[in-house]
């Protein structure tokens, strides 16, 4: 890039200054993003030293004491998870610019084999989605010829496999658990959608839905890279800005559990031996609505006290994937029976995940 970009021919002076302004903004976007990445790497590499220095040095707490371990947990995990969350949310914000709901719908319309469910669930991860627009999206998909089962695969995967959950699982449990959550979540969404498709429940969708002649969405312009980066930053502001208090509260509770609850206290009720703990976890988790940011740190601390991974995963999935408010919203377009089938099949899938995990690990 040079400082003297030649202006496009035939433009007027205002156009020229607009172009120059955009170029300056673009350059700033690149340099700010690169500088932020550098700072991120620097901070992330110093986390352990910072936590030790703060808890055992500055606060001169005793290593291995209750308070010392709780504080160390808090001052290590909080910046670590916040950093990971920021990076993942930024990356997902950029990725979202490649997958608009309109584009995803066009990719899925008219496909109705098992592969369509796989595609729909995968697109559910990368397409921007907010549960407040679940209903217009549902109608938009169905009226454009996306089959019901395929639409469900998308609607199950989109909220369950979100960037906040993945970043927190990665930060607190390690990449293996994050990957397991991702793959198992995908499997539940694919299979549940496929089963709903096979059951042929279209007549349980509120009849007016199919009667709507939804207008095709207007062609949106393709953003350039600086605009994609800008979208990443916007995603960070919006999501990290919203969840950080929950995250802090969750990690604080987790730190308390970590330092003060005796080891193996939970083995009896949440351990592998208690087979009934998985269905119980799902049963409690389904109507519960909590955001991943507040819940995952607490759950992570429980795991250290003898809870089984499968039970814990099943609980998290059911809290995040199924919630009462979401079902109430969906009632506008689905009959109660269809909602019950949807919740039942997803809960069953999550139950299986819990049992399989407890058996394997």
């Amino acid at each position, binding site marked *: 890039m040079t400082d003297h970009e030649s202006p496009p021919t035939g433009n007027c002076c205002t156009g020229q200054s607009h172009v120059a302004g955009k170029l300056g903004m673009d350059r700033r976007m690149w340099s700010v993003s690169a500088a932020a990445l550098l700072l991120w790497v620097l901070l992330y590499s110093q986390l352990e030293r910072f936590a030790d220095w703060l808890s055992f040095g500055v606060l001169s707490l005793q290593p291995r004491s209750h308070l010392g371990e709780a504080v160390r947990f808090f001052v290590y995990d909080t910046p670590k998870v916040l950093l990971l969350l920021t990076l993942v949310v930024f990356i997902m914000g950029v990725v979202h610019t490649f997958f608009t709901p309109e584009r995803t719908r066009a990719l899925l319309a008219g496909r109705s084999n098992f592969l369509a469910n796989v595609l729909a669930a995968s697109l559910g991860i990368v397409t921007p989605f907010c549960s407040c*627009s679940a209903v217009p999206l549902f109608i938009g998909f169905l009226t454009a010829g996306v089959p019901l089962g395929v639409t469900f695969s998308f609607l199950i995967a989109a909220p369950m496999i979100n960037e906040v959950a993945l970043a927190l699982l990665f930060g607190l449990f390690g990449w293996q658990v994050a990957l397991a959550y991702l793959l198992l979540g995908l499997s539940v969404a694919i299979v549940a959608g496929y089963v709903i498709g096979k059951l042929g429940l279209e007549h349980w969708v509120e009849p007016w839905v199919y009667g709507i002649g939804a*207008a095709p*969405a207007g062609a949106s312009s393709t953003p350039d890279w600086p605009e994609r980066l800008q979208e990443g930053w916007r995603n960070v502001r919006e999501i990290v800005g919203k969840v950080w208090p929950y995250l802090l509260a969750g990690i604080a509770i987790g730190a308390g559990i970590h330092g003060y609850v005796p080891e193996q206290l939970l083995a009896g009720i949440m351990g592998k031996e208690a087979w009934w703990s998985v269905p119980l976890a799902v049963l409690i988790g389904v109507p519960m609505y909590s955001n991943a940011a507040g819940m995952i740190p607490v759950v992570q601390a429980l795991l250290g006290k003898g809870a089984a991974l499968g039970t814990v995963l099943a609980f998290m999935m059911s809290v995040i994937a199924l919630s009462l408010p979401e079902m109430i919203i969906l009632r506008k377009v689905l009959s109660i029976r269809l909602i019950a089938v949807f919740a039942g099949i997803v809960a069953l899938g999550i139950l299986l995940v819990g049992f399989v995990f407890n058996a394997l690990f």
Partner: protein
Amino acid sequence: MTMKVTVYGPGCARCTQTAALIKDVCDGLGIAFTLEKVSDYAEIAKAGVMATPGVAIDGKVVSTGKIPTVAEIRSWLPG
């Protein structure tokens, strides 16, 4: 003819913010407009909006799924 702005959304915080922002920008530029808020899901879907908040100017959808920036709003306005 007065410009007609339509904000599509079920009444979520982001939709309210979008409507307020558009009002601010238009008032600041002294542009006369009517603001219509559509919260009915059927109407939202009919307009082709799959991600809320959606914005239409004189019936044409110009933005979906995000709170628009001030620069974006200016680019939709006449003049």
